[in-house]
């Protein structure tokens, strides 16, 4: 049994979805952790959920980085603990410097709310362990600032280190400019840190864990981390 710690910032609005996916769909333990808390309540995996933490004042995720719990999240990540940032949680990880790069306004300037296709690029992370490489997941996005940006040398390093974990593709898993919903560099939908235990992605796997909700493709992300924790398997660097 794995314990999911779901961080709750003022303005988080996908915390219940993540909790529901872990507890009710997967039958694991789950705890809400308020952003002012200073311990992770024994969590084996930490989820930074979607929403609008601190109203997204100044920049998305800019204020959340200073919440007391983020010191614990950073220490947990440094110890190799699995951390998943979803949408706003991804933006928080970028602002906190736990992942490289930054988000710009969507190229369309519109808030994009739709199901998209993402291709799993790498399976040697705790969150993609149970995926097949090249597997295409149909998962919703809901964001106004998901246009991933990093300097070209940073992008080159991410590619060389195989840190791009999810890419926007068409339904057939092919790169297609029309399938990139926000203008992200290199069609990046999600990436991991050097140590591969911290993963961020803009699409919402927690909203796609039951077929009644239109797709259950996101479940494999949560199953992956349960598998990585319960098997005790260290994530191999391929």
């Amino acid at each position: 049994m794995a314990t999911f710690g779901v961080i709750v910032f003022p303005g988080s609005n996908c915390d219940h979805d993540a909790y529901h996916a872990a507890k009710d769909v997967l039958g694991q333990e789950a705890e809400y952790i308020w952003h002012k808390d200073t311990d992770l309540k024994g969590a084996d995996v930490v989820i930074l959920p979607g929403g609008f933490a601190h109203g997204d004042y100044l920049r998305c995720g800019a204020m959340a980085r200073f919440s007391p719990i983020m010191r614990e999240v950073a220490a947990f990540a440094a110890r190799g603990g699995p951390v998943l940032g979803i949408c706003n949680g991804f933006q928080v990880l970028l602002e906190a410097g736990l992942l490289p790069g930054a988000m710009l306004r969507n190229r369309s300037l519109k808030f994009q709310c739709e199901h998209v296709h993402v291709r799993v690029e790498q399976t040697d992370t705790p969150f993609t362990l149970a995926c097949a490489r090249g597997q295409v997941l149909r998962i919703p996005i809901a964001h106004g600032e998901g246009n991933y940006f990093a300097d070209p040398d940073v992008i080159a390093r991410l590619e060389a280190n195989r840190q791009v974990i999810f890419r926007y593709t068409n339904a057939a898993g092919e790169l297609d400019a029309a399938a990139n919903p926000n203008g992200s560099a290199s069609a990046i939908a999600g990436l991991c840190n050097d140590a591969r235990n911290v993963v961020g992605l803009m699409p919402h796997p927690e909203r796609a864990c039951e077929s009644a909700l239109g797709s259950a493709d996101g479940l494999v992300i949560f199953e992956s981390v349960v598998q990585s924790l319960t098997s005790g398997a260290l994530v191999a660097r391929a």
Partner: protein
Amino acid sequence: MRARVFVTLKPSVFDPQGKTIADALHALGYGKVEDVRQGKYFELDLATTEAVQARALASEVADKLLANPVIESYRIEVD
């Protein structure tokens, strides 16, 4: 003293809002407006009378919070 901090996207970063504003101005007939870059403006009231100190403090908070160095740069005026 007062410090004014102007935060803008780096020249290498595409600014879709600035582009849309420029397009709107062109539609209004302002063809001489060649380009627009949108940014943020902060006024900091600082408990110091030393311009050098004020600038250093403004620069520190800009680095730490007001600007994201991955995508933005800033300029400071002090008076």
